[in-house]
C-alpha cells in the first residue's frame, strides 16, 4: 500500500511538473470542438460581475465578455504579467509622475448585438465600478481609491487620471470582474446586466438553464484574430463534488477550474492515468477566523491573542493539506509575493511561533487573566461548504479546545452565513475568507481595514491606527520600504491587536482531461477563464 501510494504521489508530481495537458512549444492549437466544463456551484447569483465576488459568475460568464487588461494567459502564475485585452500594444506606463494612464483601443470591436464598442463603453463600465451610482453595488470599489476621473478624448482612447501614483492601479484594472458593458444598455437600466448577458468576448451567449447549464458559441468577429479556437462552450452547474468527479471520470466534462482536494486528485490520477493532467499552485485565497469585536469576551485583545496562540498552523499545514485544499502558512500577504513575510518573520508573531506548548500555556494564562467563562460554549459561524470551510472549522474548534475554549459550529448555507456576518451578527467567531483574483497585496490587504472603512471586514473593529498603517503602506512607492510598512501593518493586525486570525492559505489543485490544452493554472480560480486561448486535442484520448 505504501509503495502504491508512493508511486501514485510520484505520478501526480510528475504529471504536475510536466503538465502533460498544458501547452508547450510542440503543441499546435487545433480549431473546433465543444468544450464542456463543470462549475462547482448551483447557479450564479446574478450575471453582473461588477457586483459579484464568486467564481460561479466568472467561470460560466467571463467567456462572453472583454476586459481592458488581463493577466497574460500564457503566464498566469506571474502576478505582474499583464497584457492588453481591449487595449492595443503593451500595457501603458504611467505618465505625469505615474498619475495618468492612456489606453488605445482595438478598432472595429463590436458587442454581440452588432453595436460598436468604444471608449464611452469603457468609461461607463469603469465609472460603474469605481463611482457606482446610488442603488448599484460595486464589490471592488475600494480597489480604486487612487482613481480621480476617466476621460475619453476620442472613441478609441481612454485616459485614467489618478489622485496619486500607485503600483496597485494596473493590477486592479486587470481584475477579471471588470466586464465591459454597453453604455447604451446601462443608460437605460443600470441593473440590466444582472439578468442579461451582452458582451464582446470570444464567445456569444446562447442558452442558460438555471441549475443545469449555460452554453455559448464562437464569436466569429472576435477582435483578437485567430481566436478563439473552440466552436462551442458548455458550463455544467454541479455543486456536489462527487458529480464533478464523475463528470470528469466519465469524460462528460473536460475540466473543473476551482480545484479538488488531494484525495480526489489521487483517485482521478489512479483511475485515468495520463488521460488527466494535474496542475497545482499556491492560491491567492486565505481562510480567516474573525472574532466578533462587539461581543464579550472577544472584544478583549487578550482573548483574541489566546485564540491565535492556540492554533498550530505549522502542524495543520502538514496534515490538513492531505485532506483539504489548504496548505501554506502565511501572514496577510499571498505567500509567494515579494511583500509576503518570510518564515522567520512569521515565527516572530504570536500564533506562528515554533514552540506550540509554550504558546498554548500563554494562551491559557491570558484566558485566566481575562476571566473568560470556560464552561460556556461559544458559536463558531461557518459556511456550509465542506472544502475547506467545514474541515478547517472542525480543526480550529479542536485547537481552541486545547486551551479550554469550547465552540460549537453553526453551519449555514452561503446566504444566511453572510446575513449573520452582515446583519444579525450573532456569532462569537466566524469563518471568513479573503480570496482575490489578481495578486495585488496592497489592495488585497484592504480586507483588514476597520469595518466602517471596509464593510467586508466583519469583525466590527474600528481602529484608526491600523487604518493609518495600511494607508502608509499603500502610498509607499519604494518596494523595500513598502515591504517594511506591510510588516508593521501585518504585525498590528495579527499580533498586537489580533483583529482577525489567518488560518492557512489555500492550495489549488486542478485536474482536467489531458485533451484540454492551452490552459495554465494561476494563483486564483478567477483568472484564465476567457477560454479564447484553449483548445481540444481529441488524439490524446485515442
Amino acid at each position, binding site marked *: 500500500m505504501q509503495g502504491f501510494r508512493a508511486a501514485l504521489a510520484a505520478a501526480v508530481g510528475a504529471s504536475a511538473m510536466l503538465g502533460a495537458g498544458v501547452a508547450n512549444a510542440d503543441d499546435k492549437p487545433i480549431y473546433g470542438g465543444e468544450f464542456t466544463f463543470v462549475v462547482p456551484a448551483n447557479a450564479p447569483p446574478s450575471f453582473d460581475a461588477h457586483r459579484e465576488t464568486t467564481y460561479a459568475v466568472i467561470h460560466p460568464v467571463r467567456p462572453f465578455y472583454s476586459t481592458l487588461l488581463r493577466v497574460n494567459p500564457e503566464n498566469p502564475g506571474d502576478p505582474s504579467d499583464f497584457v492588453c485585452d481591449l487595449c492595443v500594444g503593451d500595457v501603458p506606463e504611467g505618465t505625469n509622475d505615474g498619475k495618468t494612464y492612456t489606453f488605445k483601443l482595438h478598432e472595429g470591436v463590436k458587442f454581440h448585438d452588432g453595436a460598436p464598442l468604444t471608449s464611452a463603453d469603457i468609461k461607463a463600465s469603469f465609472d460603474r465600478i469605481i463611482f457606482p451610482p446610488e442603488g448599484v453595488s460595486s464589490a471592488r470599489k475600494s480597489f480604486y481609491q487612487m482613481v480621480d476621473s476617466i476621460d475619453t478624448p476620442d472613441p478609441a482612447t481612454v485616459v485614467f487620471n489618478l489622485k496619486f501614483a500607485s503600483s496597485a492601479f494596473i493590477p486592479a484594472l486587470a481584475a477579471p470582474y471588470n466586464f465591459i458593458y454597453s453604455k447604451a444598455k446601462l443608460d437605460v437600466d443600470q441593473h440590466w446586466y444582472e439578468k442579461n448577458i451582452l458582451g464582446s468576448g470570444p464567445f456569444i451567449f446562447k442558452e442558460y438553464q438555471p441549475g443545469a447549464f449555460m452554453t455559448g458559441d464562437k464569436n466569429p468577429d472576435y477582435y483578437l484574430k485567430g481566436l478563439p479556437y473552440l466552436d462551442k462552450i458548455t458550463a455544467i452547474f454541479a455543486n456536489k*463534488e*462527487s458529480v464533478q468527479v464523475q463528470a470528469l471520470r466519465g469524460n462528460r466534462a473536460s475540466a473543473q477550474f476551482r480545484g479538488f*482536494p488531494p*484525495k*480526489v486528485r489521487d*483517485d482521478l490520477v489512479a483511475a485515468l492515468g495520463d488521460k488527466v493532467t494535474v496542475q497545482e499552485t499556491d492560491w491567492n485565497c486565505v481562510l480567516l477566523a474573525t472574532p466578533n469585536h462587539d461581543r464579550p469576551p472577544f472584544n478583549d485583545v487578550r482573548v483574541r491573542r489566546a485564540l491565535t496562540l492556540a492554533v498550530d498552523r505549522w*502542524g495543520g499545514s*502538514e*496534515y490538513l493539506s*492531505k*485532506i483539504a485544499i489548504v496548505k501554506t502558512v502565511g501572514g496577510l500577504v499571498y505567500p509567494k509575493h515579494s511583500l509576503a513575510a518570510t518564515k522567520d518573520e512569521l515565527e516572530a508573531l504570536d500564533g506562528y511561533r515554533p514552540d506550540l506548548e509554550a504558546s498554548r500555556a500563554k494562551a491559557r494564562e491570558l484566558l485566566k487573566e481575562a476571566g473568560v467563562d470556560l464552561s460556556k460554549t461559544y458559536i463558531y459561524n461557518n459556511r*456550509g461548504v*465542506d472544502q475547506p470551510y*467545514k*474541515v478547517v*472549522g*472542525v*480543526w480550529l*474548534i*479542536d485547537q481552541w*479546545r486545547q486551551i479550554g475554549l469550547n465552540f*460549537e*459550529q*453553526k*453551519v*449555514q448555507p452561503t446566504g*444566511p452565513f453572510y446575513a449573520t456576518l452582515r446583519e444579525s451578527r450573532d456569532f462569537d467567531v466566524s469563518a471568513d475568507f479573503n480570496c482575490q483574483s489578481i495578486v495585488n497585496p496592497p489592495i488585497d490587504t484592504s480586507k483588514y481595514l476597520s469595518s466602517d472603512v471596509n464593510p467586508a471586514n466583519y469583525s466590527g473593529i474600528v481602529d484608526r491606527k491600523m487604518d493609518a498603517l495600511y494607508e502608509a503602506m499603500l502610498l509607499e512607492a519604494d518596494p523595500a520600504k513598502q515591504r517594511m510598512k506591510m510588516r508593521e501593518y501585518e504585525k498590528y493586525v495579527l499580533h498586537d491587536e489580533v483583529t482577525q486570525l489567518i488560518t492557512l492559505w489555500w492550495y489549488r489543485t486542478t485536474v482536467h482531461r489531458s485533451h484540454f490544452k492551452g490552459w495554465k493554472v494561476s494563483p486564483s480560480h478567477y483568472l484564465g477563464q476567457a477560454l479564447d486561448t484553449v483548445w481540444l486535442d481529441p488524439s490524446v484520448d485515442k
Partner: protein
Amino acid sequence: MTATSTTADAAPNEKSILQRLGRTARRQPLGVISGAMIVAMVFIAVFAPIIAPIDPLQINFADQLVGPTSTYLLGTDELGRDILSRLIYGSRTALLIGFVSAFVGAGIGLVLGVTSAYLGGLFDLLFQRVMDVFMAFPLIIMALAIVSVFGAGTGNVIIAITIPFIPKCARVVRSSALALRELPYIDAARASGFSHARIILVHMVPNVMAPFLIMVTSFVGQAILLEASLSYLGLGVQEPTAAWGLMLRGGAEQFFESAPWVAIFPGLAITLAVFAFNLFGDSLRDALDPKLRSI
C-alpha cells in the same frame, strides 16, 4: 372489546399483558433480540464517557485514516478521530433525537387524535383536513423544509422530525378513539359531569395506548434514520458533534475506497438501530394487537 376505565378492571388486564408479552418473547425471539439491542444501545449511550476508549472529539493527525487495530478497534477517520468512540457518543445523539422526537410527536398526536375523535363534527372535519395537508408531504421533505426555515442544529432537527410525526400518530389514534367515543362508559363519564379534558385524558387516552406504543417504537427508528439523513445532507447536527449520519458524509465519501471503515461502521450502526426499533415495534404490535394475537 371491554372498556378498561375502572381500577378493578385494570389489574387483571395489566397482568395479562405481561403474560402475553412473556409468551410473545418465547414465540418471537427476534423481538427479544431487538429489545436487548435497544437496551444495550441505551446502556452505551448513558455510559458513553466510561465506555468510549478515546475522547470522540480528539483530533490526532498522526493517526489519520488508520484501519482497525488494537488501539483503534474500528479505525480512525480523516482527522485521526477514533471511530468507535464517535459511534458510542453518536448513539447519544441518535437516541436523544429519536426518543424526544418520537415521544413528543406521538404524544401530541395522541392528544390531538383523541380530541378530534371525541369532539367530532366540524372540528374533526377541519382538523383532519389540516392533518391531510401535513401528511401530503413525505417525511423527509417536510423535515427538510422545517430545517431550511429554522436552520440546522440538534434542537431544530428535533422540531423538524417531531412535526411530521404528529399527524401520522393523530390519524391512527383517532381511528381507535372513534370506537371508544361510542362506548357506554364515555356516556357515563359525560353524564357524571366530567370535563372534556378529563374524559379525553383520563378515560380515552389510556385506552388507545396499544397503537400509541407501537407507533412510538416505529417512530424512534424512523427518527434515527431521519436524523442520519438530515445530518448526511448537512442539515442536521454539526461537526464536531459525534453523530452517525454526520460520520457518513465528508471524509466517508471522499475516502470510502481507500478507508472503507470510515463509512461502513456508521452505516452499520444506523442499520442496526433502525432494524432493532422496527423489529421491536413489530413484536410489540404482535403482542398487543388482539387480531394478531388470536392467530
